[in-house]
């Protein structure tokens, strides 16, 4: 416990320490990043020991804040979320260092202050054993991440994205506040209860809805994901990496911690999670394929993976309800494992793609191309991340999705009726999602990094990357490989967390399921390494000769005649046209000598166009009507006051008022 307290203390010191060195950016960055790394190292030690420990470490102290107590508890479940937080937090802090001289990079002192505050608040969220403390840490997390999102606040788009993020976060915080109040009223204490309390059926439904809104918004569960693509596109690279890799897992931590408090799992809860997860995964992966902004591609990919994790959680709950221990253990293990693998791979991808976007001064995929040749190391690491996200065998993402498949198949075999149908639909959605993800990542890498440049990058860009950029990315890529090679030890290490989610659940089944995947990954890595070595040896023999590649008979075709990102996505878009409702504007070509032609497509998120825009428009219209009450006379306002007073007095005449 003292280790993790020291970690939080170091982060908090880092959050205020920058003030000492406001003018000197190098020193401020050193203090900020140093505090983040030292704190993360301490936190990782604490989390590592808690992960294997049987007993939860508890600290509780009196605190003069009303209702709150300084109650902290570090158990296996908390540790399972704390460890990726520390690892990725430290690496993202290092990634930020090279941006310390850019206004939009977030590597300066104030950026590190918010970054360290974010790390400390996320750790507190995971540790809090008191609902008020948890809510306070949750809010600090929101505000710190908001400050990071609007790092480049000179841009109007960034400010709007931040505003949107803040609104969604506050709606979610409102739901959480309500949830905590009800829970506290039911248990009679503000301590985070370890055992479920009996609630009425309708109360369970209400509490579940509050949980999905409150935690699901942070976890990017559809349809509460809308803030995420905008915020991730607006934030600096290392911030997107941390938010996408770690902060959304805080939402899943909340769900994992609070769903058991609802009492024995009900089918309604499980089916809702499965439905939201499946819809989110499929919808988001299609949108990811159609984005032009590279960071929005990755953001929608995050939403997709959040959908998969939600789906796995729902499957686990369904197993618990139906008394199918195999499904329960596989589902929850799949969720935990996929949280880890997605965290690592997505941070890597955001870090790499963000670095490229910063050098190219553009996030428009249609303007990229040929970037791998300019930055082979960063590019190669980014490709590893893309392959891991696309669940290519031999990398971490494959193990996670394999486990989800295993869970769904196990469910389809043992369950009956609607539950079996849900599992089968889940399998179909997962298969489709995996295929489209592969297409999306192939598009990102193929269009963005391969080929020839479509637009010349600005002068002075793509100098050799700083070691502070390549080293963290290499560490993340290494972690992706490592958990793909040795998934069984990781699953075994997560056994404690699993036991808190599925009482009596033993991970032997899961360990057996993933062990062959580790061997497969080792063999595949070996083959790839062997091919690379052979190629290197053979290529070294001859004399390299630069020639034109075959260009369909066209000589000297410019970069702009390559396949574009939109054209690559077009077949999939047409297949899903009824779902996507893309707006396409096309002009020409007409006649024998067409002069001008253009083609433009725009696919909007249908939760935005279908749900949020009408809803917010309605609220705005209602409020506009309230404006008519505003009259420019003091006496009018005084009359409103009198009216309010009379209404209050009239309440006295109603029988509802309790009189002594």
């Amino acid at each position, binding site marked *: 416990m003292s280790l993790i307290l020291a970690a939080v203390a170091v982060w908090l010191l880092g959050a205020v320490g920058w003030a000492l060195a406001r003018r000197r950016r190098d020193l401020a960055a050193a203090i900020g990043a140093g505090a983040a790394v030292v704190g993360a190292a301490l936190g990782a030690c604490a989390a590592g020991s808690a992960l294997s420990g049987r007993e939860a470490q508890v600290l509780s102290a009196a605190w003069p804040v009303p209702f709150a107590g300084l109650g902290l508890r570090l158990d296996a479940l908390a540790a399972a979320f704390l460890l990726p937080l520390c690892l990725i937090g430290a690496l993202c802090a290092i990634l930020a260092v090279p941006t310390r001289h850019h206004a939009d990079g977030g590597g300066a002192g104030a950026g590190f202050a918010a970054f360290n505050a974010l790390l400390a608040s996320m750790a507190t969220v995971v540790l809090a054993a008191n609902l008020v403390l948890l809510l306070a840490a949750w809010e600090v997390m929101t505000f710190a991440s908001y400050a990071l999102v609007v790092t480049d606040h000179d841009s109007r788009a960034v400010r709007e994205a931040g505003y949107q993020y803040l609104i969604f976060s506050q709606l979610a915080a409102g739901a959480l506040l309500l949830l905590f109040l009800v829970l506290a009223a039911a248990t009679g204490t503000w301590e985070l209860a370890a055992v479920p309390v009996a609630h009425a059926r309708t109360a369970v439904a209400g509490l579940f809805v509050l949980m999905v809104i409150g935690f699901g918004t942070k976890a990017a569960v559809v349809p509460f994901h809308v803030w995420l693509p905008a915020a991730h596109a607006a934030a600096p690279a290392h911030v997107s990496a941390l938010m996408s890799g770690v902060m959304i897992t805080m939402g899943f931590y909340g769900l994992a911690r609070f769903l058991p408090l609802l009492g024995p799992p009900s089918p309604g809860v499980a089916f809702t999670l499965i439905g939201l997860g499946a819809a989110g995964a499929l919808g988001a992966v299609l949108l990811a394929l159609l984005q032009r902004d590279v960071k929005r591609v990755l953001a929608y990919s995050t939403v997709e993976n959040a959908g998969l994790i939600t789906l796995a959680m729902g499957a686990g709950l369904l197993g618990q309800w139906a008394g199918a221990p195999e499904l329960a253990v596989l589902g929850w293990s799949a969720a935990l494992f996929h949280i880890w693998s997605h965290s690592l791979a997505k941070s890597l991808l955001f870090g790499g793609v963000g670095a490229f976007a910063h050098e190219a001064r553009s996030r428009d995929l249609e303007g990229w191309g040929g970037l791998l040749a300019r930055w082979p190391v960063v590019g190669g690491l980014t490709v590893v991340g893309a392959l891991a996200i696309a669940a290519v065998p031999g990398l971490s993402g494959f193990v996670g999705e394999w486990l989800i498949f295993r869970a769904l198949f196990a469910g389809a075999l043992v369950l009956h009726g609607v539950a079996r149908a849900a599992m089968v639909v889940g399998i179909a959605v997962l298969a489709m999602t995996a295929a489209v993800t592969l297409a999306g990542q192939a598009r990102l890498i193929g269009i963005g990094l391969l080929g020839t440049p479509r637009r010349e990058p600005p002068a002075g860009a793509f100098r050799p990357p700083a070691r502070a950029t390549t080293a963290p990315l290499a560490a993340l890529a290494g972690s992706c490989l490592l958990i793909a090679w040795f998934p069984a030890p990781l699953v075994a290490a997560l056994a404690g967390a699993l036991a808190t989610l599925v009482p009596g659940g033993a991970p032997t089944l899961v360990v057996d399921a993933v062990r062959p995947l580790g061997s497969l990954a080792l063999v595949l890595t070996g083959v790839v390494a062997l091919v690379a070595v052979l190629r290197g040896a053979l290529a070294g023999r001859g004399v390299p000769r630069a020639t034109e590649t075959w260009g369909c008979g066209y000589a000297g075709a410019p970069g702009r005649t390559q396949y574009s990102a939109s054209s690559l996505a077009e077949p999939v878009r047409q297949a899903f046209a009824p779902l996507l409702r893309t707006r396409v504007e096309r002009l020409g070509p007409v006649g024998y000598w067409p002069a001008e032609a253009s083609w433009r497509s725009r696919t909007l998120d249908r939760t935005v166009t279908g749900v949020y825009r009408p809803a917010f428009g309605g609220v705005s219209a209602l409020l506009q009507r309230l404006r008519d009450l*505003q009259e*420019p*006379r*003091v*006496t009018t306002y*005084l*009359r409103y*006051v*009198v009216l309010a*007073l009379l209404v209050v*007095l009239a309440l*006295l*005449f109603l029988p509802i008022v309790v*009189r*002594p």
Partner: protein
Amino acid sequence: MDRFGDVVLLLVLMTNFAVLVTGRLSACIRIMTAQGVLLAMLPLASGARFGVHIAVLTAGTLAIKAGVLPRILRWAIREAPVRRELAPSIGPIGGVLLGLAAVGLAFGVATRLPHAAGLAVEGLVPVSLASLMMGFVVLTTRQKALSLVIGYLMLENGIYVFGLTLAGDIPLLVELGVLLDVFVGVFIMGLVVFQIQRELESQDSRRLTELRD
């Protein structure tokens, strides 16, 4: 002492009605001065044991409500050439009728309010509510900024009377704080009235519309 308290409260109500029927601002100020004197007598009648507390309260009320505030208001009308409330939205008859309705409502409500047991003077709560509502009547029907100040003063006096129900329990410092609060409030309002007059060449609060966002 009960009878004495009731008489004072009745006189307070009468002064409120007097404001409702009076258009001349200087007369209104004189009536408010009288009300201040009456209010200063109330702590003596409220049944609390006479002591330093009550003595200071009486003296403070007398000084501020009957001394300083009227002086500020008189200064304000001397500086601004306004003598009468010219355009009340209802006449004196309407004002009295509204005042009567307010008194009726106040006595109706007062019986339903949970209040501290053992009040020496039964009438404190209804009279305070009536003063409050009659203050609102003045505030909502008159246009001149200075009339609004007088309405606000009536409203404050109502709150002050309500506070007397707790005179034995509230620390002296709090009571003095409230008195000071009213003083500062009226002082600032006097300045604002003066400024409105200087800026807009009129005291008509309707012309504040120009400040709408």
